[in-house]
């Protein structure tokens, strides 16, 4: 081989790519920033520092491993190896990424180890953590590779011991150092170690070369609800046993210890019994009845278990409320609400009980794909799943969405409402336009602005007041705001919808910019320029008959309002997708000319899609305006329109689940990155995530299935096989 071949060969090119990639990662990684005086500063720090050799080494490693991935995959495809790898990595990630102890410094692991000065915590955060991790991973690795049952059981026990050690050490740290702690590093580590244990048990006791996933789905098909039940049981046991139930200021009392704490405070007898093992007993009873019901698929036992679980949930709430009320009565921490002083325990316990109820009742909730798979053919199951009826999974998700935000810190509750929730709603709306109808809309945020400004106008917060002394509450402004958005949407759509995709993109982009600039330029003093509303837009209230609801400043109240709006919108949209209009949208998206030839009124379908999308955006705008009170044109930048589009495509265009998950993930990501990278670098990482997602999974996180089923394949059986294949590949 001569020199030229060596330099221009395929492997030389790959090496070059790997090394360039390594340099790019080196530039991205780390806190270094450029400086105005020395333009090469950032680059020098990133690339000329000795650490570059680590990155180059990784690049060379990639170069060596990349051609052998298929081989490696085949060799590593042992029972339990996937979950084991993920869980072991999960432990390590929980250490680097999550908070461990909030009161000190940045709250990361290193800060926790500095805070831990005595006892077990000192040892654990000092060196024991690494040692246990290495031990568990080492034993586990050998056990999985050699398929040794003895080693696997040792490893599983070690993993469980490590989990317990983590809990105890973290509790030790919290109780000695004192201070409010909202960190989840220890909890995540525990979950990951339990995952390690499960994978090892599986690896030791299974004979076939099947994956845990298949096994779990098989179990789920034989015993509906068993997976949710297992999760619920884990949650409830952990929270009743270990979590903090009562935490005013500097105290972190578990359920058991809180019993002594409340001795003689006049707490109700029932609550006292619950503290002293009552809740644990009801959990055991509910779990036992549920397990028996699920195992023998006995209807009466399942009903009993569901009832017992709901009762357990109610008792949990009652006990927690009683404890909190005592706290309020005694003025602990200046609490005004009985829910203020509670730890995470009651909420996780409630979640566990409710999920247990869902699991027990799962045969009667909708027709999930696994249910259907039991009696009927797989084809029937695929169609049932694609209809997205109410499934146990959906209901479980709803329960989580209702209960879980209670354990978030106030900051994250705020993020949940103003970022995640609102943008999920926007993405669901844009999905109608982009995902289902295939129209590229880059000015979606304009309708959001119109909704916000219409609300501000109708409630009298803008300099120009509505005529005839009209003065509406924000929720009463919803129909008007939606109407305004529909009018705007049709006014924009009617002349421009005959334009093809890319032309439409620039026109909608222009529309979005025009709306924003009009709001800034303030013709006729309508919008009050860059200052936004003069007086805050009032918070929403409902006052109909006996129903009297007022929203204040608590983000959770808004979360429930938003959840209700989202549930209605998602329900309506899934119905719409399956209606004749939904089919018309799909037809227009796939081939407009053919659709027209088949008698589809393409213009009407497109206009309706535009109007429906716009009204969703407007609805989000109403919510936004009445939640924040003050807003200004800077809330409606072109960047936001682009981001919403990115959420939709990232999640999976046209797939409702995908869009919701995608939007939630991408709005959560910047908040999460806040802890990990310099604030200015967040957008860079998000850009990289978008790029990677599109390169490796261009159809999004959870691709739309209807598309594949109906349009890619003509033979129905083949189509269903493809759909199930893509489903199993998908998650």
């Amino acid at each position: 081989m001569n020199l030229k071949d060596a330099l221009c060969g395929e492997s030389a090119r790959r090496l070059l790519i790997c090394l360039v990639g390594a340099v790019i990662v080196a530039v991205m990684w780390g806190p270094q920033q450029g400086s105005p005086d020395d333009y090469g500063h950032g680059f020098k720090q990133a690339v000329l520092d000795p650490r570059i050799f680590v990155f180059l080494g990784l690049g060379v490693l990639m170069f060596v491993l990349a051609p052998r991935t298929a081989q490696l995959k085949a060799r590593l495809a042992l029972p339990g190896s996937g979950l084991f790898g993920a869980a072991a990595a999960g432990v390590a990630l929980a250490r680097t990424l999550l908070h461990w102890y909030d009161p000190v410094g940045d709250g990361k692991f290193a800060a926790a180890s500095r805070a831990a000065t005595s006892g077990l915590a000192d040892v654990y955060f000092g060196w024991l953590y690494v040692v246990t991790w290495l031990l568990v991973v080492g034993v586990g690795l050998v056990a999985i590779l050699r398929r040794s049952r003895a080693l696997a059981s040792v490893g599983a026990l070690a993993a469980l011991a490590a989990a317990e050690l983590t809990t105890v050490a973290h509790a030790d740290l919290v109780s000695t150092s004192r201070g409010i702690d909202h960190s989840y590093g220890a909890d995540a580590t525990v979950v990951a170690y339990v995952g390690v244990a499960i994978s090892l048990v599986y690896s030791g006791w299974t004979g076939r070369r099947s994956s845990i996933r298949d096994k779990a789905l098989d179990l789920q098909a034989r015993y509906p609800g068993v997976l949710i039940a297992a999760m619920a049981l884990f949650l409830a046991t952990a929270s009743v046993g270990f979590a903090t139930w009562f935490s005013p200021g500097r105290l972190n009392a578990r359920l058991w210890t809180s019993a002594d704490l409340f001795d003689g405070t006049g707490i109700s007898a029932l609550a006292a019994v619950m503290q002293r093992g009552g809740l644990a007993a009801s959990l055991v009873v509910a779990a036992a009845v549920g397990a028996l019901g699920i195992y023998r698929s006995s209807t009466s036992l399942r009903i009993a278990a569901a009832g017992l679980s709901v009762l357990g949930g109610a008792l949990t709430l009652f006990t927690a409320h009683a404890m909190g009320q005592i706290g309020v009565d005694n003025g602990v921490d200046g609490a005004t609400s009985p829910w203020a002083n509670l730890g995470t325990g009651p909420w996780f316990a409630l979640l566990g009980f409710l999920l247990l109820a869902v699991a027990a009742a799962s045969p009667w909730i909708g027709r999930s794909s696994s249910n259907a798979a039991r009696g009927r053919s797989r084809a029937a199951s695929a169609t049932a799943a694609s209809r997205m009826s109410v499934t146990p999974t959906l209901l479980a998700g709803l329960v989580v969405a209702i209960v879980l935000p209670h354990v978030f810190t106030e900051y994250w509750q705020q993020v949940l409402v103003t970022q995640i929730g609102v943008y999920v709603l926007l993405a669901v709306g844009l999905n109608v336009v982009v995902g289902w109808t295939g129209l590229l809309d880059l000015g979606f945020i304009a309708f959001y602005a119109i909704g916000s400004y219409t609300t501000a106008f109708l409630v009298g917060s803008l300099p120009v007041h509505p005529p005839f002394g009209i003065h509406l509450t924000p929720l009463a402004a919803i129909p008007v705001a939606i109407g305004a958005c529909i009018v705007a949407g049709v006014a924009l759509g009617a002349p421009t919808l005959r334009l093809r995709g890319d032309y439409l993109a620039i026109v909608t982009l222009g529309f979005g910019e025009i709306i924003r600039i009009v709001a800034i330029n303030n013709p006729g003093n309508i919008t009050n320029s860059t200052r936004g509303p003069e007086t805050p837009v009032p918070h929403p209230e409902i006052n109909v008959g006996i129903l009297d609801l007022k929203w204040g400043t608590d983000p959770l109240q808004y979360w429930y309002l938003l959840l209700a709006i989202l549930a209605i919108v998602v329900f309506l949209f899934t119905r719409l997708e399956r209606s004749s209009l939904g089919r018309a949208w799909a037809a227009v998206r796939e081939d407009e000319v053919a659709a027209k030839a088949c008698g589809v009124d393409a213009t009407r379908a497109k206009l309706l899609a535009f109007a429906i999308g716009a009204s969703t955006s407007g609805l989000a705008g109403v919510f936004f305006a009445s939640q924040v009170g003050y807003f200004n044109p800077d809330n409606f930048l072109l960047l936001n329109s682009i981001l919403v589009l990115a959420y939709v495509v990232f999640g999976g265009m046209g797939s409702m689940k995908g869009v919701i998950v995608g939007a939630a993930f991408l709005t959560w990501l910047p908040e999460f990155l806040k802890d990990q990278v310099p604030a200015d670098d967040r957008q860079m990482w998000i850009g990289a995530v978008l790029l990677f997602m599109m390169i490796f999974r261009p159809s999004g996180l959870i691709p739309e299935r209807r598309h594949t089923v109906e349009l890619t394949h003509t033979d129905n059986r083949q189509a269903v096989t493809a759909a199930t294949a893509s489903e199993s590949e998908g998650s």
Partner: protein
Amino acid sequence: MDYVHQLPDYLVLGLTRGSMYALIAIGYTLVYGVLQLINFAHSEVFMSGAFGSFLAVDALAPHVGSTAGATAVFLVGILAGAGTGSCIAFMLERVAYRPLRQRGAPKVAFLISAIGASFFLSQVAGKLFNRLSNNSFPEYFDVNHVAFTIAGAEVRVIQLIIVASALALMVGLDALVNRTKLGRSVRAVAEDAPMAALLGINIDRTVSRTFIIGGALAGAAGFLFGTAFAFSNMMGFQPGIKAFAAAVLGGIGNIRGAMIGGVTLGLVEALIPPLPGVGIQWTDVVAFGVLVAVLVFRPTGILGERLGRVA
């Protein structure tokens, strides 16, 4: 009457701005021609040109003593800008476009990967250099020196340079696309890619080179823009959108259309807002309004689309 007196000034301003838009718009149009995709990261290629040429000019500028020296530095700057632009555009195509093409991704996926690349590039530039909004090139010649006065309008050196360089680059490009073998293959791919492949044209290579050409023009435009005004890691956004609008206005996929669209948009932005009763704060509204109006009556832009057809 004031307006009439200042009309020549506005015209000069509009031509300058328009030729800048045209240079960037050509990049959008070229890529659209061969791939039928909007290259949303093109604005970052423009930005990279400014930073790349800055490194070169910054190193050379202190040694400038004469007009000839300044001219040389200017030429080096424009070459460095074009070189950086084409490098970035080449890598962009490799990373953000080619893998998606090989997977047959839906069209919107390209848009999102380009947006991701755009976020990435602008922030990496910010991380490497700085995130100030007003970096400026070292002064090696007086950019605001009045070169001559025509019909009462003062024409500054930089305006002259921008229009002249843009003109030269565009004439060169026109020749490249219409006279050379590379140009012929670009046109062939734009006209009918599968057919071009059948006739032995390497599609991947042609697409790659199309990105390089567009990137070179955008990089040069980045240098000119930075010299005339200021540069920053976020400088691409606004001109990028305007240039995209200009490309659509002229008929996307059509090179001469992009030139005409760019100049038209520049003139519209310079001439209409100063009219009595309009106001400078409505510039963007006017620009997009004209765009929408043109598209409503001519849905494929002024000259119509397609790269292959017009040449």
